[in-house]
C-alpha cells in the first residue's frame, strides 16, 4: 500500500475530532484501516488534500465503507489469512513498477524454496496451533502426536523449580505465554507469513513451461511435441489432484494455495531439468543430482505445507503425492 504515508498525515490532524480506534488494530493489519477515519470524518476537504499531495492515492477509498463492519467484532480475527496477491494500487503507476513488484514477489517465494529452513520455526508453530485447534474442535488426532506433545508439558509440572524452566516456558501452551510468544513471533516472521500465505500461479506456470520445454528439446525429434505436451499437462493435472487431495484430507489450506506451494517447490527440479538437458549427459551423475534435488523439493514442499496448515497427523498423507510427482518429474529428467 503506497498511500500510507500521505494518509497518516491526515489522520494525525484529525485525531482531536474523532477518536480513532487505532489501539485495537493489530500490528500487521491493513494500513488502509488507519486511513479510514480521515476520509470518513473530514469529507471533501480531506479527500482534496490527499488528492493534491500524491497521485498514487486511490480516489475512492472503499475501506472506509467497511470500517464500521470491521470494528464491531474483535479485529484480531482476520489478521493472518491466505489470499491471492492483489498487488495493491496498480492503476496509476508505470507498467514496469507493476511487473517489477510481481517479479520481486515471485523471487521472494523462490528464495523461500531455495532456502526452506527459514520456515522451520514457523512450521512447528503452526502445527502446534493446529493441534490445539483440532483438540478444541473434537477432531481425532493420532495418539503418537498427542504423546509427543504431552511430554514437555508433563515435565514442566514435575520440575517447576528446576533450571530448565526457561526451556519449558517455550513449549507449554498456557494462554498468556502463548500470547506473548505470538506477538514476538509475529514481529519477526510477519513478512515470512505474508510471503508464504499469498499465493499466485506465476511461479508454477513459469516452472512447468521451462521444465516441459527443456525436456521436449532434449528428447529425440520424433517425440518432442509429445513429450512437451505430455509433461506440461501431466504437471498441471497432477497439481489439481494434489490440491484436491489436500482439500479432502482437511486442514485449513485452500486449493489454490496448495497448488501454488507445490508449484513453487518445483524449482530445484526445474533447475535439474535444465542442467540435465543442456550440460550433463551421463546418466549416473544425472541420477545422483536428481535424487538430491528431489529431496530438496520435497523438503521445502513439506515445510510450506506445514506452515499453510495441513492437519497434523495427515501431513505425510498430504505430502506423499507431492513427493510422487517430484519423483516422476525427476526420473523423466534422468532418462531423457
Amino acid at each position, binding site marked *: 500500500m503506497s498511500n500510507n504515508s500521505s494518509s497518516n498525515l491526515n489522520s494525525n490532524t484529525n485525531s482531536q475530532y474523532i477518536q480513532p480506534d487505532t489501539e485495537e488494530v493489530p500490528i500487521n493489519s491493513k494500513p488502509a484501516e488507519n486511513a479510514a477515519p480521515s476520509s470518513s470524518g473530514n469529507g471533501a476537504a480531506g479527500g482534496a488534500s490527499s488528492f493534491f499531495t500524491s497521485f498514487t492515492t486511490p480516489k475512492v477509498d472503499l475501506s472506509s465503507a467497511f470500517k464500521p*463492519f470491521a470494528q464491531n467484532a474483535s479485529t*484480531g480475527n*482476520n489478521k493472518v489469512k491466505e489470499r491471492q496477491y492483489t498487488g495493491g494500487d496498480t492503476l496509476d503507476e508505470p507498467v514496469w513498477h507493476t511487473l517489477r513488484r510481481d517479479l520481486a514477489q515471485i523471487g521472494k517465494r523462490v528464495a523461500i524454496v531455495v532456502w526452506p529452513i527459514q520456515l522451520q520455526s514457523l512450521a512447528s508453530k503452526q502445527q502446534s496451533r493446529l493441534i490445539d485447534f483440532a483438540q478444541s*474442535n473434537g477432531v481425532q488426532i493420532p495418539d503418537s502426536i498427542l504423546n509427543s*506433545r504431552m511430554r514437555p508439558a508433563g515435565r514442566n509440572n514435575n520440575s517447576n523449580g528446576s533450571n530448565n524452566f526457561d526451556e519449558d516456558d517455550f513449549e507449554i501452551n498456557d494462554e498468556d505465554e502463548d500470547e506473548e510468544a505470538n506477538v514476538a513471533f509475529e514481529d519477526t516472521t510477519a513478512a515470512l507469513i505474508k510471503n508464504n500465505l499469498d499465493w499466485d500461479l506465476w511461479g508454477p506456470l513459469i516452472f512447468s513451461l521451462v521444465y516441459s520445454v527443456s525436456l521436449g528439446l532434449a528428447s529425440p525429434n520424433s*517425440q518432442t511435441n509429445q513429450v512437451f505436451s505430455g509433461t506440461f499437462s*501431466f504437471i498441471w493435472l497432477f497439481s489439481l489432484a494434489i490440491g484436491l487431495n489436500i482439500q479432502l484430507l482437511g486442514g*485449513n489450506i485452500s486449493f489454490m494455495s496448495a497448488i501454488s506451494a507445490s508449484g513453487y517447490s518445483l524449482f530445484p527440479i526445474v533447475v535439474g531439468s535444465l542442467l540435465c538437458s543442456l550440460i550433463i549427459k551421463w546418466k549416473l551423475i544425472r541420477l545422483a543430482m536428481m535424487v538430491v534435488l528431489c529431496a530438496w523439493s520435497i523438503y521445502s514442499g513439506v515445510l510450506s505445507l506445514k506452515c499453510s496448515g495441513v492437519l497434523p497427523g*495427515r501431513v505425510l498423507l498430504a505430502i506423499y*503425492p507431492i513427493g510422487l510427482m517430484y519423483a516422476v518429474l525427476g526420473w523423466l529428467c534422468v532418462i531423457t
Partner: protein
Amino acid sequence: MSYSKVNQGHNTSLIDQDDDLISQDNITAQPYIVPDIEPDTKPAAGINGGGSGTGSTQGNPPVIKPQVPINSSNSHVFQINFYRQFFDLDTDTFIHKIQRALNPFNNAFSEGEENHITELYGFIWITGTLIFLMFVSSTGSNIISSWIHGGNSTEGGETKQYEYKFDLLRLSIALFYGYNLFIPAGLYVITSWILKFPHRLVFTEIISIYGYTNILWVPITFINFIIAILVNNQKHGRIANILEWVIVLLSGAITGASNIMKISPIIEKNSLILQEGNPDVNAKRLQLGLLSVLIVCHLAFTIVVKICFFGLQ
C-alpha cells in the same frame, strides 16, 4: 460454505472473499472471543489424549468447524464436503492398512460391519505409486541393460542408445487405473442390480481392496532390475523373456489370490442367502461363476502388463 457466514457474523463475510478458508488466527483467537469456554477445557482435552473427541465438543460453541468429515453425510454429491468422507484417514491407520495388505492371505476386509465407508486414498495413491515404479523399472532396466551389456553392439556404425517412449507412461496410467476402477464397478453393478444380492457389496470397499492389493505388484519392479543386470538381453533374450514371464505370472497369481480371498466370503454369504430364498439358484455355481470371471479378468490384465512393460519379444 454457509457455516462460516452464519457463525462468524457479517464482518468476516465482507472481508473474507473466500469463505472456504478459515483464517489462521482464529485458532489462537478463539478463547478470547468466546466467553462460554471454561479455561480448563483445553488442558483437560490434552490430558485425555485420544478420547478428546467426546469431552471437548460438548461445551464448545461453534466458532469454526474444521474441514474434516465430521458431518459429510448430509452434504450434496456436488459439494466437496461429500467426498471428505472418503479421505478420512490418518497416517498411522494408513500404515497399518498397508502392513495388513502385505499379507495376501488374510481376509480382514470382509470382517467390517455392513455399509461402512472405506477411504479411497489408498486406491488412488498406491496405484499411482505402482504406475511410477513400473515405469521406472521398465525404462531403468532397459537403460541399465544397454549400458552394461549393449556397449559393443553397433547398428549402422554408431551405438544405438535406448530411447524411452513417453507413451508408456500414459498407457500405464490408463491400464492400472482402468483395471482397478472398471472391474470393481462391473462387479458392483452385476451383483447389486442384476443378481440382486441382499447384502450389497460396498463399491468403495471393492475398489479399496483392489487398490491395496496393488502393493503386491511392487516386488517385480525390483526383480526386474536384477534380471536386467544379470541376464544379457541381446545374447540370451529367450532366458530373460522366460524369467520375465515367470515373475509377472507369479505376482499376477499372488495379487489375484489376494483379491479373491477378500471378496469371496461376501459373495459366498450372499449366494447362500439367495439360495435359501430361491431354490432355483445354485449357490456353489453362482459363486464359482463370479469368481472365475474375476480370475479370467485378472489373468488378462496380467498378460497385458507383461506385454506393456516388458515387451512381447
